């Protein structure tokens, strides 16, 4: 049996692929691209929420938010480490991010304009991310699947914290309730866009499903997210801004309207409200840190030489 056939058989039999196993180049490239984009999303995702750390309205909320943004940096680290098991280099991937050669989740190109956005991102954005990511805990590439298990645990914790913030605000003053509704109005459609374009327009789905890198289609996951979220919105007391949203007893699912796909393609294409800002921020941090990384490398090399000299 040739290597390719053996690989296909192992993957379709739900066996895990490990770093030393043979794998097709296309599989390796697709995985590096997907995991890197996920890592970039975690790192860029630090910005919209990090935007509110200095202004968090209570010390408890400040601690929760700082810990959450710190977790995102940690997720980025595990994921970059997973790409390194495939032969990628973190430095190169960071260059790809700041040069626009690799993408990150478009949701982070929307601005955070009130503290309610911290809660809404936890509830809707982390919620959508979990819907996308839970199936990846069973993805075929071992290091990725294991990273995803840890990440999903922490993401579900973040989602609860976000929902709890919104619930607390809804029990507060009228101004706070209005702030929550306004935030949900802004983030609902972008959250639905997080599952990607409709299946009819998605180019990568078929091969990725076959390789067990992806396990559900965009439309399946979007439906799952809507079905889960509607009862939570009712419990919270917010209105989801979709007049077409309605339970369909025949399908056993909610019917819902379509996001503005033109806006989606605009944002994906780089013209979203904060694309340039997010990349400029990441680029500045990376470039400002260059002398620090160079110093650490120079010191480590000098110390190694000294220790060699002594030995």
């Amino acid at each position, binding site marked *: 049996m040739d290597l390719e056939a053996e690989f296909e058989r192992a993957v379709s039999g739900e066996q895990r692929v490990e770093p030393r196993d043979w794998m097709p180049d296309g599989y390796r490239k697709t995985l590096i691209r997907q995991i890197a984009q996920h890592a970039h999303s975690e790192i860029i995702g630090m910005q919209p929420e990090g935007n509110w750390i200095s202004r968090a309205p209570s*010390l408890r909320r400040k601690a929760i938010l700082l810990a959450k943004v710190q977790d995102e940096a940690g997720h980025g680290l595990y994921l970059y480490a997973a790409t390194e098991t495939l032969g990628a280099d973190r430095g190169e991937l960071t260059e790809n991010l700041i040069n626009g050669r690799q993408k990150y989740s478009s949701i982070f190109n929307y601005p955070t304009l009130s503290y309610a956005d911290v809660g809404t991102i936890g509830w809707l954005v982390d919620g959508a991310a979990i819907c996308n990511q839970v199936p990846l805990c069973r993805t075929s590439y071992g290091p990725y699947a294991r990273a995803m298990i840890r990440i999903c645990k922490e993401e579900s914790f973040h989602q609860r914290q976000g929902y709890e913030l919104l619930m607390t605000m809804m029990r507060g003053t009228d101004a706070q309730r209005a702030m929550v509704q306004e935030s949900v109005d802004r983030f609902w459609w972008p959250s639905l866009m997080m599952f990607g374009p409709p299946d009819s327009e998605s180019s990568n789905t078929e091969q990725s499903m076959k390789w067990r890198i992806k396990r559900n289609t965009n439309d399946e996951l979007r439906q799952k997210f809507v079905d889960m979220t509607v009862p939570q919105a009712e419990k919270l007391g917010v209105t989801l801004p979709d007049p077409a949203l309605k339970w369909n007893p025949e399908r056993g699912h909610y019917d819902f309207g379509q996001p503005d796909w033109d806006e989606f393609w605009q944002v994906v294409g780089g013209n979203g409200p904060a694309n340039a800002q997010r990349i400029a921020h990441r680029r500045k941090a990376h470039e400002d840190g260059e002398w620090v990384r160079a110093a650490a490398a120079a010191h480590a090399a000098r110390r190694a030489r000294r220790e060699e000299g002594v030995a």
Partner: protein
Amino acid sequence: MSFDNAYESLIDHEDTHWAFGTGFSEALPGVDRAIPSDVDSADLVAYCLMLGDDALVLSQRLAEWCSRAPELEEDVALANIALDLLGQARLLLTRAGEVEGCGRDEDALAYLRDERDFRNVHLAEIECGPFAGGDFATTMARLLVFSTWKIAQYSSLLGFADPVVAAVAAKGLKELAYHRDHAAQWVVRLGDGTDESHRRMRAGLARVWPFVEELFAAHPVEQRLGLDPAGYRAEFDSVIDTVLSAAGLERPTSVPAARVNGRAGRDGVHTEAMGYLLAELQHLHRSLPGATW
């Protein structure tokens, strides 16, 4: 826990506060919270505010690095240090409010006091990067100086008359040992790195050094509580000298920053940077009076 329904357990538990490690009802279990009778309460409140404000204000500064650090590992480390200090601040401000007995909690003290009522040292509030006023080297210089001083200060408080302050000091010492180690490693790496990093490290130390003198000047509140910061200056100097020597650096010669009519941070007289820091920290809380968070 099943990952397939991690998402579905939301609705049943909305009353629970999930923030692990961010509440403090259990932070100091078993510590006697009775107010000691052999200490002047007003002095104890003022001292808790001094310690709490040091931690709160430096935490606010360090959190500014989040998403701006030279490496992801540093984003994580600096956020972690900021979280430790925020945790100390919350315990100390809560204690200040408890001893004061006027119903002010940690948030009333953090968000509703005006600048003149903040008692932190200037070293905590000055800008040392990532924004104007410094860089990563300046940040590490400040962190080394601050944590070395705090370790000596907290060590002197282990037998303090107030058991809550003593317990915060004991808990904080473990955290500060890590902060100091982290800063010291970077000071050595940068001092012994490239020409540029050496130059920046030297400039960073020179930037923070004028604020060292204030750390060891006993405030009347401290004197009345029987505390003498000057007593641990030698210990501080010895640690700093050890680190600087490993880094190939020398103690800066900059002269101490002058006071304003004899007053500084512990008296509520701050640097210009403090007003901006508080404006950012307090703005949202003050914009929505009566809100619950």
